[in-house]
């Protein structure tokens, strides 16, 4: 009887162990946000130097997104490394060759963000529903914007020199389209000339980023700060929507 009990206990402990990763290194600020959103920030031990906010306190910094410090990551003995497609394949390869588990995610569209949130939720806190929950709250937040954005042509500028825009196929564009806006141009992320920007005849130009944006003509430019709340393809965009509502819908 005792033997059976111990067997069961071992099996139970093993399944518990295989259930999650305990030492996770994130090579992207957006993935860090997602991990915090699914409630697994305690499992996170390493973040990039670009990480900002409460999540990163007390975590080791492991270098940049495109130039991670492989040696430092290896030294932390993580059991999982999460990266986006922005991290060069060379670095991912060497980490894999060192026997570490690396998962690479694509974070471009809203669907990507929702899927990755679901996947990381399942991997780290056993809760796949987090992805759908995120989508629901995004839809709810976006709906609250719809009375000021519905049917408006919108350009999302993420850098002024050179002019760089997030189009309708990017996560930013898709969030605004949830609110009924017409996001132009029809790309994910691309460079644009000022002339093309004016020719699009936007009702709103949302400017996220440093410096200032002064296109010719009477375009309505709305500057949004801080940029981190918008430029992370992660649940942090919820905060961004909130800020956008305050900036756009005040009257």
């Amino acid at each position, binding site marked *: 009887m005792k033997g059976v009990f111990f067997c069961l206990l071992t099996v139970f402990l093993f399944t518990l162990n295989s259930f999650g990763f305990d030492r996770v290194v994130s090579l992207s600020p957006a993935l860090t946000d997602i991990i915090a959103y699914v409630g697994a920030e305690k499992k996170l031990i390493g973040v990039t*130097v670009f990480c900002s906010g409460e999540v990163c306190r007390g975590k080791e*910094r492991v270098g*940049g997104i*495109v130039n991670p*410090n*492989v040696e430092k990551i*290896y*030294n932390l003995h993580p059991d999982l490394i999460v990266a986006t497609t922005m991290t060069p394949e060379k670095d991912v390869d060497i980490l894999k060759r060192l026997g570490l588990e690396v998962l690479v995610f694509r974070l471009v569209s809203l669907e990507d963000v929702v899927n990755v949130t679901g996947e990381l939720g399942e991997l780290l806190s056993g809760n796949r529903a987090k992805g759908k929950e995120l989508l629901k709250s995004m839809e709810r937040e976006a709906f609250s914007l719809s009375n000021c954005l519905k049917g408006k042509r919108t350009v999302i500028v993420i850098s002024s020199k050179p002019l*760089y825009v997030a189009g309708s196929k990017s996560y930013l564009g898709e969030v605004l389209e949830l609110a009924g806006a017409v996001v132009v141009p029809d790309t994910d992320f691309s*460079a644009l000339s000022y002339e093309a920007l004016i020719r699009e005849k936007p009702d709103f130009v949302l400017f996220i980023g440093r410096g200032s944006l002064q296109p010719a003509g009477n375009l309505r430019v709305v500057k949004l700060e801080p940029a981190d709340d918008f430029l992370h393809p992660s649940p942090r965009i919820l905060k961004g929507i909130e800020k956008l509502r305050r900036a756009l819908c005040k009257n």
Partner: protein
Amino acid sequence: MQKLAFFVFVLIPSAFLLFWGLPPKDIVLKLRLPELLLSFGFGGSLSVAGSVFQGALRNPLAEPYTLGTAAGAALGAALASVSGFPVEWGALAGGIFSIFLLFFAFRVFSDPLSVLLFGVGLTAFFSASILFLYALFPVYTLQEALLFTLGYITPVALSPSFFLFFISLCFLALLTFRSRGLDLISLGDETAFFSGVDPKRERFFLLLFSSIPVSLFVAYCGVVGFVGIVVPHVVRFMGYRRGNFLLPVSFLVGGGALVFSQWLARTLLYPTVLPAGVVTALLGVPLFLYILWRYTGGRG
């Protein structure tokens, strides 16, 4: 005194790179040893190529970086990685192609300054082509391209780094073996011809053989400048002027110099890793200007 200098130039940087911060054994073996082999081989090959270029083209400012060979190899590597070929072959093809262009330019211009300007133009054209190539593809790789053109040494596995190091040693031996031709060409084509060396053929082979290892390393590490200019001058200053000494000593000192730069690149802003090319430029440009001043001062 010179032995002490070797010790300082070669062994201390290597020891720093390997053992700085006293890492555990598997980090030394799996990460730092490949990095040491890669940066030592690259620095050595660059300096040997610098010595050969300077002698064969009779131009104190010649090296693979200023004459466009490194940029050509980088463009080849970028083209290969975009079209799915192995980057090493692409880099090799790009490097050899730019050597052909350079050889052609040398025959047309035959004046050191014009050849140098031709190289500057070639470098600018190749670098612009790399950026254009990356602009055609998604935005995310742009920063990667920038790091590549600045010479960012990423960690590699042990076997390719060992292989590259071995290749650089082979070409060093080959060039040292042929160094009589280099010495004679540096005295002038006529002297070389009447001493039994065909200057055109010899020059072509010297340039080609010294560029092959550089191109292969560029595929892995990107474009690193100024090592190839400064190190041969330092070595000549130390008293090694004949090819059979100049080339091996250049290899050792150049390897040490790049290893030191890579160590700085990794330690200065820990945990961020800087491109090694930035550090070599920061350290090398003052020395380069000194060489320029000394060279013109010596003539005037």
